[in-house]
């Protein structure tokens, strides 16, 4: 250790506290001992299980009950809202499906009517006429002669 460090050590040597320091500390300690120990938040909550019916725990039980009730009401409300929303979505889907079926049905009706119209319309008659004008070349010509005779 250098001379400078010795000087520093000498300058920074311990100093006695003011008179009565220890007594003041001990008085504070005795005062804190005589005061009832302040329960921590955690301890006071855990105490509701140790002494469930103590009057001091009524407020805690009331808080627990209020929180539980709020949870139940909230849960039921959430469930109702959820069910209502699902029902509304189902109704909307059902309506869309019915509309789609109705549209598809009307289109089928139209298509059927058109097919019927085509089957019973001038095209068939034309086919009949063309049959008369152009006899079937594969048919037997003697048969026709015999008929004519």
């Amino acid at each position, binding site marked *: 250790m250098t001379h400078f460090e010795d000087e520093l050590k000498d300058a920074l040597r*311990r*100093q*006695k506290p003011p008179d009565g320091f220890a007594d003041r*500390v001990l008085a504070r300690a005795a005062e804190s001992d005589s005061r009832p120990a302040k329960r921590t938040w955690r301890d006071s909550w855990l105490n509701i299980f140790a002494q469930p019916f103590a009057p001091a725990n009524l407020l805690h039980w009331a808080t627990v009950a209020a929180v539980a009730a709020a949870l139940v009401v909230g849960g039921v409300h959430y469930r109702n809202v959820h069910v209502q929303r699902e029902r509304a979505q189902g109704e909307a889907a059902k309506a869309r499906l019915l509309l789609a079926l109705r549209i598809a049905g009307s289109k089928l009706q139209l298509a059927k009517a058109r097919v019927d119209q085509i089957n019973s319309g001038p095209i068939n008659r034309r086919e009949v006429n063309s049959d008369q004008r152009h006899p079937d070349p594969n048919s037997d010509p003697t048969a026709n002669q015999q008929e004519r005779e």
Partner: protein
Amino acid sequence: MAEPVPAEEAADVALGDFAEIVRQHQSMVFSMALRFLADPPAAEELAQDVFMQLHAKLNTLKSPEHVVFWLRKVTSHRCIDRLRHSRMPQVSLDDLPESAGLEFSRDVQPADPFLSRRLQQLVRSLPAKARLMVILRYQEDLSAEDIAGILDMPAATVKSHLQRALAMLRDKVVRTMGEVRTDT
């Protein structure tokens, strides 16, 4: 089998132990706070708070060595915290009045009162961490490893901080008091 000690009696025993610890270590705690804060009322308040904290934790401390370590650690951390909260300005060496030096111990008078007072002022002008390290090194006579344990930092960091703090102090002493005063 030993009879259980009544609660009041146990409290008296604990308070008796506590009183002994306070009397034994009051100079250490108070001096650390005083050298760091340079404010005797604030130092006393801080030292009282440290002992009150010890009173609450006394049954968790295993040995007298542990108690001393704990006291130094808590005092150091409280000093830093107090400085942080009060935003105490770093005092420049040139701004320090001559009367700002702390009183010397009533038991032992220093070899060179003027140099000692000046050194105390200079220590106060150091940054907080460096000041604490210098106090622990030269007031408490602790090694860099012990200081590192108290301040929760590597010993190498403590050594480099101490070297820098010493160089800074020596430089300031030389500037203000002259080479001759430090060499003699």
